[in-house]
């Protein structure tokens, strides 16, 4: 934002306290991510909105189509239902429907996923749903370092980018470099390298998969762990290369099973790496139900290291 006057931030309570008598920088986003920004950039570029997602997400599309680079915050991705049209039918399709003559460099940030006992309407992943729409780019970082580099890429990108922040990862504090760096879209990260099984995991599943894999090392099982970082574009080449080498694949995501990313990657491998496959492709995901509230239920719902371990072993059986 310091370097590009076209960038601005908009959303409900991104600074907070608009129209109030108290302190100006009272809030700074539902997870405090934007704290301090309004002091630096003022209310002209850090714009609080009413609760009116269709209007401000749509406005981001309109501002982007007319030359700005808006970043908008939807707080919880679960709220996408009230502004869905503006994302999948408008922003996503401008460029194509208008014959390539427009660009729409908007970034929409969402917190996503479970782990907070926030129940059915505040715990969804949803990036698997958004991955299905051509015209959108979809980013799902699994750690703070990547998040920064991917966010800077997102802001510079000329297409609409949906940026999903697994909300349990806000709790982590990690050192990130102060300087500006970008991580390109469509480039997977090899979090672990190994020979026996390829594990592909998304978002908050990446550290869980890493834990499972690290424990399995003691049993002499070594795995590739691939974090695609962006689901659209997807680094198909990295995944296929690994599967061709290991012959075995486990895909892990926290979303429910139907028409999700685990099936997406499994389908990819079952076609393009078929001849290398040595065992069934296993998918680890949530069951086919909404996210439950109770911590015990949620713990049983979200995939954990045990389930990942079991799946890895099942491919070797």
């Amino acid at each position, binding site marked *: 934002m310091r370097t590009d006057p076209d960038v601005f931030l908009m959303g*409900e*309570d991104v600074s*907070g*306290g*608009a*129209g*109030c*008598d*108290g*302190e100006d920088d*009272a*809030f700074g986003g539902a997870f405090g991510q934007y704290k301090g920004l309004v002091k630096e950039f003022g209310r002209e570029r850090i714009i*609080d909105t*009413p*609760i*009116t*997602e*269709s*209007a401000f997400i749509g406005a981001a599309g309109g501002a982007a189509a007319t030359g700005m680079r808006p970043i908008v915050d939807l707080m919880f991705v*679960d*709220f996408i*239902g*009230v502004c869905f049209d503006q994302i999948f039918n408008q922003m996503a399709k401008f460029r194509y429907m208008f014959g390539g003559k427009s660009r729409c460099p908007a970034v929409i940030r969402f917190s996503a996923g479970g782990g*907070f*006992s*926030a*129940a*059915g*309407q*505040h715990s969804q992943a949803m990036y698997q749903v958004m991955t299905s729409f051509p015209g959108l780019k979809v980013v799902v970082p699994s750690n703070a370092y990547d998040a920064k580099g991917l966010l800077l890429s997102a802001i510079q990108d000329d297409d609409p980018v949906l940026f999903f922040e697994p909300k349990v990862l806000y709790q982590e504090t990690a050192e990130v470099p102060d300087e500006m760096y970008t991580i390109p879209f469509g480039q997977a990260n090899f979090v672990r390298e190994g020979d026996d099984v390829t594990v592909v995991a998304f978002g908050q599943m990446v550290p869980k998969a890493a834990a499972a894999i690290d424990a399995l090392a003691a049993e002499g099982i070594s795995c590739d762990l691939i974090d695609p970082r962006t689901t659209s574009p997807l680094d198909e080449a990295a995944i296929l290369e690994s599967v061709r080498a290991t012959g075995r694949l486990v895909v892990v995501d926290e979303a*429910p*099973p*139907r028409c999700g990313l685990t099936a997406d990657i499994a389908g990819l491998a079952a076609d393009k790496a078929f001849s290398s496959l040595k065992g069934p492709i296993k998918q680890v*995901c*949530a*069951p*086919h*139900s*909404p996210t*439950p*509230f*109770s*911590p*015990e*239920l949620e713990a*049983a*719902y979200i995939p954990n290291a045990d389930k990942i371990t079991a799946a890895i072993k099942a491919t070797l059986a």
Partner: protein
Amino acid sequence: MSISKESLLHAYRTMKTIREFEERVHAEIMNGQIPGFTHLYTGQEANAVGVCAHLDESDTIISTHRGHGHCIAKGADVSGMMKELFGSSEGLCKGKGGSMHVADIDKGILGANGIVAGGPPISVGSALAAKIRKNGKVAVSFSGDGSVNQGTCFEAMNMAVVLQVPAVFVIENNYYSEHTHIDYAVGCNDLKARTEAFGFPVFVADGADFFAVHEAAGKAIAHARAGNGPAGVFAEQGRYHGHFVGDPQAYRGEGELENLRENHDPLKVFRQHMATSGELSEGELDAIDAEVMAEIEQSVVDAKAAARPTPEQVTADVYIQYGATA
């Protein structure tokens, strides 16, 4: 409109129950006993109770993310609610919903709702059912001052007028949506007028005063029940706690909260009325206080002792006939 002694006792008891329920929930959250996101209704009790005083079990309400007060006012089982908030499988929603989704369909409670302004369209559907069945029921939706800027809310209001259904829109102005003031978020400066422009009457009340709400809501509900189409209630009242538990509320002006607690406390206001009219004695009210405290204490004891859900329950109740796939 004179209110029977029994109704007065019930109203006070219900307001006090909401207050103590919320304060105790607050304390238990601070203790780390209640998980998830919780929004408290403290300070707004008169509104829920004043409205629900006109409803019976087969009328419906639909609530918001700040739903405990509405549910208690409409007759939800307090112990079942406390168990739900603790995540027990004995909770009102078997531990699946939590604070943002407490519901009891049998009591006409279509649920708290985690989506701002998710409720009004659903409520219009309940009102439509009442109209088709010609059963004289009404459907009440509660909306915050922030939620009324949501498209779903406007749509529901217009459609209720078009279909002439007995839907009552109760707008609770506690001045804030999260940390943003109504004066900012509602562009026009007259929310009542903007609402009335949709084509139905809106009755205004001091939302800290049970009697004022009772009167305004009585008019709105009578209007709808008589088949005259939708009506609205617009009431102002303070929210004592932050938007969510833990919110430092730095956005508030100096002395604002103190003034609310001092001069706009529904329980105090009610007691003042009683002191003037003499309808209920201090002793009667004190006795209720004691009973309510005991009930809430017991509900927490029970909630802590209640059964915890087991993993198999995760996939239960997704569908009616069809088991889960995974």
